[in-house]
């Protein structure tokens, strides 16, 4: 009887742990800065690599710079800020690409050559601090005086 009870307890324990793990079945994907993809997230999840590959050939071989899907744009719009408020690299925790790729155990080759962080100019824009409402009100008050 005791053995059965212990068995049931163990089963509950296993169930509880799987339920707990269930919360993390899908990786927690960080939100991007810019507007959403018109194709939809489902499409991008399934096809982003094809779009990147297609446009990389156009840029590399033909010099077409007026393209829609460049890795540079991905990295800029999907930048995740680390504890120091600067964008994290693909080797650090929480990088947009790494979150899913680690989960799916698919190696990313892109960042062996490409930078996984936005350009310095883009970082400057990301770091820009906008005045809050009180600062604005103070400023406007100062103007009317």
């Amino acid at each position, binding site marked *: 009887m005791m053995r059965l009870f212990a068995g049931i307890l163990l089963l509950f324990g296993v169930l509880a742990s799987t339920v707990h793990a269930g919360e993390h079945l899908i990786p927690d994907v960080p939100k991007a800065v810019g507007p959403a993809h018109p194709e939809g997230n489902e499409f991008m999840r399934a096809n982003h690599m094809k779009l990147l590959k297609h446009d990389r050939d156009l840029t590399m071989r*033909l010099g077409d710079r007026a393209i829609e899907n460049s890795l540079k744009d991905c990295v800029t719009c999907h930048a995740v800020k680390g504890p120091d408020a600067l964008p994290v690299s693909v080797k650090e925790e929480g990088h947009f690409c790494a979150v899913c790729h680690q989960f799916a155990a698919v190696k990313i080759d892109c960042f062996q050559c490409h930078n996984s962080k936005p350009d310095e100019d883009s970082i400057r824009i990301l770091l820009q601090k906008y005045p809050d409402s009180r600062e604005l009100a103070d400023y406007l008050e100062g103007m009317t005086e």
Partner: protein
Amino acid sequence: MKLPALKTPAKDITEINRREFLRSGAAVATVALAPGVTLMAFGGEAKALADPGKRWGLLIDVNKCAKDCTACVTACSDEHGWEDTGNPETDPQWIRKVDLKDKDTGREVSLPVMCQHCENPPCVDVCPTGASFIRPDGIVLVDKHTCIGCRYCMMACPFKARSFVHEELEDQKSYSPRGKGTVESCTLCVHRIDEGGTPACVEACGKTGNGAMLFGDLNDPESEISRRLAEYPSITLREDLRVNPGVHYSNI
């Protein structure tokens, strides 16, 4: 879920080539679709594409190149992020200053040597993967997506212009991706050219006041470089190999 079609399949590069050529060839391309129906395409975006009608090149006036000046080398290093770490055997060198001395006369000159952007590049001939290629506008590049790092091109290049990346890199420039295990060389600052600019070395040389380097379209008889080439004597390096370099030297 029905997936929207990709713009064009990547393998169909010849088709793209033809279309882009039509787009870039003339300011306004007119195509007759049916009697009385014409399609007019304005070449607005054409500037961004490698134009097959052009051939980019350099003219280096060695007389104007100062012996101790390395502005072009520094500018290239800053622009593309390669650096001299004191290990000349493994450090990348996209451009280097070469000093020459005529033993008979004692005349000493100094000149920059980089990828000569040949019309018949030996590096492209030997590449087993097609990674080494020549753009329609004459710029010779390495497609690092397909480069396997075999270094045949480094052996084939008569100018020793290519380097191999031996170590892992971080924080590359977004316009100049570089990575371990691939071969690289001067890109003639293709990212600047596509935006209508000039290479970083030429710009830096101009800023020093020496003005030894001139960049332009060799196919355009009206360009400054073509006019100077027509007027004054110049040579290309290793003319015996008949690779027809895009980089010309005068007063060497």
